[in-house]
């Protein structure tokens, strides 16, 4: 019988574009201490560790064994989970299953990246198939740019509509002491920022960050003792749909992986009207158009209405489904940690520990991960033990 699992502690480093003061291993150590402090555990009480990052950003092979001194894995079980941009949620889900299996009670999930150590684009381009995709349509931005162009053409959404997503997330980040970019921006600044690949401009897209996130997951048997309000895992779902970028270009279909993963997660968690039933959403939006288009894929609003849904203020902190109180990916992007940060921030909301970025009365929270070839991970957390 699968054990129920809850998050009982979260932590993250204060994210920066460069962390010259620490090596990767030392940065991991910094992050790990924080969720331990959050739930009052020592590393000795952790039963298992799952760690993830995107290898080619730091060129460390077998990160799990390399990390041991910093991850606290000395004489413990540790394994590495990695799935590109979705790594952080894949790591979280792996930690969930370590505990759900009944074999481990207190599991530490670590996501980290030192993006400043490499040329991000050079490293990311290698995700494309070397024979068919790598010479043309690769790197993070071109594929997103074509998605955005197709969306604008189909729905009439404008660059200004998208810019509102960045303004919202960057504004929210001011209340998150850990966020990388903590200066608000205006619509005009987004529109005036340099064009990278039409229609994506510099301020439409996420930064590169050095940072780490760590989360303690606990099995039912111990969770209530470790947190006053655990964030219970109510559902997880993953769809890593495509292998080649060319297969992902039916834009009329929307972000298929997110539709399917969210449907499965909603069904498992008993959510029928997402924008009403959820109280907050920490979404992996790597760029602004995602914040319009994926509202539809998540079922927050009808197809074609994403721009209006956001423009009407429904995703603001005071709206019916606040999105990214943490500032989201557009404010902080340490890739291996980014999706785990969404889970951690969603948990923070459920646990009531959000401080200046707390949404009042959160009972259910949504966290998503995105990456790879238009892949999606979905996690639903709640205050009620399932």
């Amino acid at each position: 019988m699968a054990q129920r699992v809850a998050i009982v502690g979260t932590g993250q480093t204060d994210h920066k574009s460069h962390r010259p003061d620490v090596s990767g291993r030392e940065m991991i150590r910094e992050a790990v201490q924080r969720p331990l402090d959050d739930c009052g555990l020592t590393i000795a009480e952790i039963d298992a560790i799952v760690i993830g990052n995107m290898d080619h950003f730091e060129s460390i092979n077998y990160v799990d064994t390399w990390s041991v001194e910093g991850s606290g894995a000395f004489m413990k079980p540790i394994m590495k989970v990695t799935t590109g941009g979705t790594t952080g949620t894949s790591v979280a889900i792996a930690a969930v299953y370590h505990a759900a299996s009944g074999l481990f009670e207190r599991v530490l999930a670590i996501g980290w990246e030192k993006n400043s150590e490499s040329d991000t684009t050079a490293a990311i381009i290698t995700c494309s198939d070397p024979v068919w995709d790598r010479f043309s349509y690769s790197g993070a931005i071109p594929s997103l740019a074509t998605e955005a162009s197709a969306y604008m053409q189909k729905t009439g959404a404008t660059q200004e509509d998208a810019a509102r997503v960045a303004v919202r997330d960057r504004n929210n980040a001011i209340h998150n002491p850990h966020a990388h970019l903590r200066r608000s921006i205006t619509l005009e600044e987004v529109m005036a920022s340099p064009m990278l690949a039409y229609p994506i401009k510099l301020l439409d897209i996420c930064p590169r960050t050095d940072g780490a996130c760590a989360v303690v997951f606990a099995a039912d048997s111990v969770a209530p003792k470790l947190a006053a309000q655990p964030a219970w895992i109510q559902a997880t779902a993953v769809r890593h749909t495509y292998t080649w970028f060319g297969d992902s270009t039916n834009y009329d279909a929307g972000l298929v992986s997110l539709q399917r993963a969210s449907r499965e997660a909603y069904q498992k968690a008993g959510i029928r009207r997402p924008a009403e039933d959820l109280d907050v959403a920490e979404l992996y939006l790597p760029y602004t158009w995602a914040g319009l288009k994926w509202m539809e894929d998540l079922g927050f609003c009808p197809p074609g209405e994403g721009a209006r849904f956001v423009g009407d203020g429904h995703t603001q902190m005071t709206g019916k489904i606040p999105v990214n109180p943490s500032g989201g990916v557009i404010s902080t992007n340490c890739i291996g940690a980014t999706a785990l940060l969404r889970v951690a921030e969603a948990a923070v909301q459920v646990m009531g520990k959000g401080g200046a970025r707390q949404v009042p009365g959160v009972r259910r929270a949504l966290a998503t991960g995105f990456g790879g070839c238009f892949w999606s991970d979905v996690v639903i957390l709640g205050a009620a033990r399932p």
Partner: protein
Amino acid sequence: MENWLDSVTPLTLEGQIAVPYTWWVGETGSRFLIALRDEGKILGNRCPSCGTVYVPPRKNCGRCYVDTDVAWVTLGSEGTVRSHTIVRFSFPLQPAPPPFAYALIRLDGADVGLLHLIKHDLERLKTGVRVRARFRPASERRGHILDIDCFEII
């Protein structure tokens, strides 16, 4: 039935990934490497909990999971070989042409082994032999583990 594959040459695509890297050494590592570069000295540090003296020095002890960048020690440049191997094959990343040796060296004052090179007198190399660090000339040192050119059998 003939195997058609036997009469064709499969297509291959040759390529190489070129991704440049710049690794942050961090404050703790920097202090160690700067001491190598500027003073020709090998530093370690001691875990306040278990007393292990680490070289290279660490920001935290992996066993005790406490900070260790508090009690720094200067180690001797001499030590004892605890394990070794004479490498005989060539590989472009090797810092010397084979035959040369890798050794785990227990420096005087340290509780762990330092992995480094022994390039000369290989016929005298055995476990337990005493070695001394040979630094590059000060003008050639750049804050790099190979500021120690190699260890020499005493």
